[in-house]
């Protein structure tokens, strides 16, 4: 809502203060004032900042929310659900694919009636991957059974977050509530915002503690069974209860909004109407665009057009009656849906509005449906004028010429249609013959010969130059070195991550050979499918006409984040033994979304969700040992490597290819530098990964047919350095060298030593 400062400050009963903040900051600000018990989260743009801001505030001792970095949104929803059953207050924030990944959990939580508050920072749904704002994720929320509050600006993000909790916990509701705001348009735009000046006033409004008397899985004296097996005829009654609760939420929201208006002077009617009193034509839009349209209404009113605008502050329950009432005398309305319900002859909102009109006997108002603003395409005032023009045209023509269409799409210029530019890579130059792998039939061991790196400079790169990674990014030096050790053709699948987004920014692609992207919980499964289709079509003789000279080598590329959220499918693929390589570039964090901690982030390292402050000094848990986890799946070959030891990595690549073509799945981890988020100079990457090896934090080794071999032993070469020598070179770790962090540093060093000692034992004993 637009703020009339004079009126509002004057009428607030509870002292307010001004902030200049974005939507995400205000969601976090409200959460920290409420002081929720638990937030289980997983980073995804554009919602990630909410957890980041809360982490920063926590590091500074401003709240006690238990922030749990989960291994994926499905888990984050699980954590939140479990926490909600356990009686405390629960908070989350997510977007788009993250929301889709947790979708299964959401009706569970609504159906078993466990309140919590989740912010959906709306963003378009893949694929192709798009990180910008529309309502396609929101429309999936319509059927989850969660009441949905809508936010048009950072002010309403704050206000709705306070009201949402009260609504969720209300005895007549008892449902998890969603607070939806527009990704980037609202989440990242800073505005002047008012907030409660005192936390005590917030608590007075939402209640000091959650109301007692409801299911609490920690109440020893009242054991309860949550989530039973319930078939017909009982299930329909459970759902009826839920339906009643949802409609109750509409009424309860009005009560809460009235109370809130008394306290703050900021009132949120269920349906916001702008100059609708005598409107002939109207436009319906939601969230950020519904503010822009008000300027258009003002301009049209000056021209004598009786224009008005409608937008809901709540869409579940849908304000059917209020909309029908508001449109009673309107001649035509254009409804803009910022997401399509593909095949439904309109987005979800237009069809619900039509149902509202029909239900209340209005058969005269003309309704024009347009899908607009998809994938973050901006909505300008001129677009608003176009929407009104459609409505005015319908009034004049007394009919709607085109009831449903897209708005803002364009046919394109035929001359600029894409054409293939590069020839497919020459097979013979990819198959140099410079690298040989032979198996000794007696010992079963592989003998590998690789030439000096210089000779391999004649081998074409798998990527074109021109990708958009940061200066000094270690991903592509690491990956290309690995690929130099692979002979012949590859098919690559990259998980979502820096390597993917920087090489495939539409309409460009840096990949010269075939490349597939899939979302980063599911790459291993997806490539499994490609591999098995290859073998099946080959068996049927269907590949003969496709120019194949030798079998492809199938390579999946993932970051360390993809090996967190995608760990399950990776282990599944490993256990199934598909002939493919999983190569992980590990830069110790979720760098693509802004440097959040991953499970591979080492203890004490600073990320945007393991901040440094008086109450916290970086990450609180030790780094994940992914190579050992994959080795425990008993795949034929596991390795580690880095660009500082090129011959070592080339040999491992050659072995990886042999095993992936002859035996089964290979996993390899390449440590790579991220100068931006390690807070170093761009030029320092090679030296830093080298020091990680020399400090034995990142030992170079392989596990071949179950036998561990350390391929470079810094101790034997008399090159071992203290971990501090490595840590002092990075901005993200320098704090660990301060005296007050001695304990964390010692813990980290002990863990490094423990893993190194165990690795040496494995190296020495083939049975381990």
């Amino acid at each position, binding site marked *: 809502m637009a703020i009339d400062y004079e009126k509002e400050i004057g009428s607030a009963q509870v002292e307010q203060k001004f902030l200049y903040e974005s939507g995400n900051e205000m969601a976090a600000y409200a959460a920290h004032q409420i002081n929720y018990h638990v937030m289980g989260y997983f980073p995804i743009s554009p919602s990630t900042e909410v957890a980041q801001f809360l982490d920063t505030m926590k590091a500074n001792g401003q709240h006690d929310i238990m922030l749990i970095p989960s291994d994926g949104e499905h888990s984050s929803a699980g954590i939140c659900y479990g926490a909600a059953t356990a009686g405390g207050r629960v908070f989350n924030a997510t977007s788009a694919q993250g929301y889709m990944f947790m979708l299964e959990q959401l009706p569970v939580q609504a159906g078993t009636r466990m309140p919590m508050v989740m912010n959906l920072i709306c963003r378009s749904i893949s694929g192709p991957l798009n990180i910008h704002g529309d309502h396609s994720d929101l429309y999936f929320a319509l059927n989850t059974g969660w009441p949905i509050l809508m936010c048009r600006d950072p002010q309403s993000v704050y206000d709705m977050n306070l009201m949402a909790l009260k609504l969720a916990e209300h005895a007549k509701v008892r449902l998890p509530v969603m607070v939806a705001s527009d990704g980037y348009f609202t989440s990242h735009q800073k505005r002047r915002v008012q907030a409660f000046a005192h936390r005590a006033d917030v608590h007075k409004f939402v209640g000091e503690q959650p109301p007692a008397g409801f299911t609490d899985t920690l109440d020893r004296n009242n054991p309860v069974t949550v989530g039973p097996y319930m078939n017909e005829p009982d299930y329909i009654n459970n759902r009826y209860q839920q339906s009643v609760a949802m409609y109750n939420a509409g009424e309860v929201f009005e009560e809460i909004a009235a109370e809130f208006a008394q306290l703050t002077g900021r009132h949120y009617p269920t349906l916001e109407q702008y100059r609708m009193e005598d409107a002939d034509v109207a436009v319906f839009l939601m969230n950020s665009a519904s503010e822009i349209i008000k300027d258009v209404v003002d301009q049209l009113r000056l021209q004598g057009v009786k224009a008005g605008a409608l937008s809901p502050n709540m869409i579940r329950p849908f304000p059917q009656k209020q909309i029908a009432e508001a449109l009673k005398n309107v001649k035509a309305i254009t409804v803009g849906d910022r997401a399509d319900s593909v095949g439904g002859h309109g987005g979800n909102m237009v069809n619900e509005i039509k149902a509202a009109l029909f239900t209340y006997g209005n058969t005269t108002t003309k309704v024009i449906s347009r899908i607009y603003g998809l994938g973050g395409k901006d909505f300008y005032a001129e677009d608003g004028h176009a929407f009104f023009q459609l409505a005015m045209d319908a009034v004049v023509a007394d009919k709607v010429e085109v009831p449903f269409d897209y708005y803002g799409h364009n046919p394109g210029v035929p001359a600029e249609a894409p054409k293939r530019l590069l020839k497919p890579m020459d097979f013979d130059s990819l198959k140099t013959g410079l690298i040989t792998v032979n198996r000794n039939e007696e010992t079963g061991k592989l003998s590998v010969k690789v030439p000096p790196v210089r000779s391999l400079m004649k081998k074409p790169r798998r990527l074109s130059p*021109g990708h958009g990674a940061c200066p000094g990014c270690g991903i592509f030096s690491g990956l290309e070195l690995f690929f130099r050790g692979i002979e012949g053709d590859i098919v690559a699948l990259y998980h979502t991550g820096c390597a993917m987004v920087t090489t495939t920014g539409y309409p460009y692609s840096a990949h010269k050979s075939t490349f597939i992207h899939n979302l980063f919980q599911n790459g291993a499964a997806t490539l499994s499918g490609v591999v098995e289709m290859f073998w099946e079509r080959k068996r049927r003789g269907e590949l003969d006409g496709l120019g194949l000279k030798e079998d492809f080598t199938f390579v999946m590329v993932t970051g360390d984040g993809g090996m967190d959220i995608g760990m399950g499918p990776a282990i599944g693929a490993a256990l199934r033994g598909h002939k493919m390589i999983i190569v992980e570039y590990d830069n110790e964090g979720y760098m693509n979304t802004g440097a959040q901690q991953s499970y591979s982030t080492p203890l004490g390292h600073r990320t945007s969700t393991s901040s440094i402050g008086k109450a916290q000094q970086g990450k609180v848990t030790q780094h994940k040992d992914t190579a050992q986890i994959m080795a425990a799946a008993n795949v034929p070959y596991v390795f580690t490597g880095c660009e500082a030891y090129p011959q070592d990595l080339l040999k491992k690549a050659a072995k990886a290819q042999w095993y992936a073509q002859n035996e089964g799945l290979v996993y390899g981890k390449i440590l790579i530098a991220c100068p*931006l988020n390690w807070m170093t100079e761009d030029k320092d990457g090679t030296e830093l990964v080298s020091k990680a090896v020399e400090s034995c934090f990142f030992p170079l080794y392989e596990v071949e047919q179950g036998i561990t071999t350390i391929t470079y032993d810094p101790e034997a070469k008399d090159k071992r350095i203290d971990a501090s020598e490595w840590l002092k070179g990075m901005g993200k770790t320098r704090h660990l060298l301060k005296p007050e962090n001695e304990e964390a540093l010692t813990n980290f060093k002990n863990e490094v030593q423990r893993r190194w000692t165990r690795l040496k034992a494995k190296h020495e004993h083939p049975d381990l």
Partner: protein
Amino acid sequence: MQDLSLHGRLNQSTIVEKVKRIVILLDTKKGVMSVVQLPKVNALGFFEIRLESIGGLGANLAGKMLAEAGVVGAGLNGVSFSSYGSEKKGSPVKAHIRFCDMNTHIRDTSPVERPHVVGVFHEALAKTVNVTSGINEESTVLVNSAKTPEELKELLKLKAGTLAVIDATSIALKEKNRVNMAMLGALFRLCPFLDTETMKGVIEKSLGKKYPQAVQSAITTFERGYNEVKFMHFELPAGESMPEYVRSDVSPLGYETQPMGGSIINPGSTFLKNLSISRSGMIPAYEQESCINCAQCDTVCPDQCFVWEERLDRKGRSQMFLLGIDYQYCKGCLKCVGACPTSALSSMREKEGYADAHTVRHTFDLVDLVAQS
């Protein structure tokens, strides 16, 4: 977070600043118009600024500081945001700021398309981005450059308007601080309604705790930006008009020409891109005489800048030889300089024209486009 509560903690700002804020807040409470006057506004009441930069130069931060100086420091109302994507450091980015008086409704979330002020953080951006899009003859375009306003007018193909020039890169290198501080200083000069003393307080506050040694150099860089910016106005020649504003959100590829499903059917096409704008002043220089062709540079290069050739060595064996660097793709990370075991690669301050004169182009195995069509 900026806490403006009268009752909240007023942080470590100076006494003067405290007093100022209180005055502003009291005014706000009374609903009085803002204490400063905007020099000009558009039909909706906004003074609009657009910053054009590349990720890593700090334009986002500069935009935030500028906006806060207006909203928090000068008692204006405003909105600020950046263009967000998965663009990495070194890619073009924009920041948008709108200022208005306290009683103007802020509803527009769309990007600033018709700016009063444009701040260009890197002159080379003009090669790939229409940085002056939407300006009129009364707009001011601030450019980080060592060139003269006349040269820049040519480079930007500016028809009319005021050019403001500041050599922010040189100042930043000299003062061992960041380009954005010098640009911020110059931007303050273009926004006379902002108070430089407040800004210095903000710099002190934000850096003082963690990097006290950086405070003075940041303030000096800011002040030099403010003092050293040069202006020149160019009148619109009679009978000519400013270029029409072109909406930035229309793609040449459309639903009739986009291959189905979003697939890219011309893979490898990133070689068409020019990444030289990602460089922030430094560049590797290659001297063939001392090169031993060990390929250490190529091994660590993230951007495939090294160009090789196969030929016979002195013993008559076929070998790979390094020819040089394709600077079109070099982002200036200088990893190669560290990897080089000889003196063949060294780092240098990039001079105008050096890269073009010394680049060795990659060759690409192109499809015959005529035959294809």
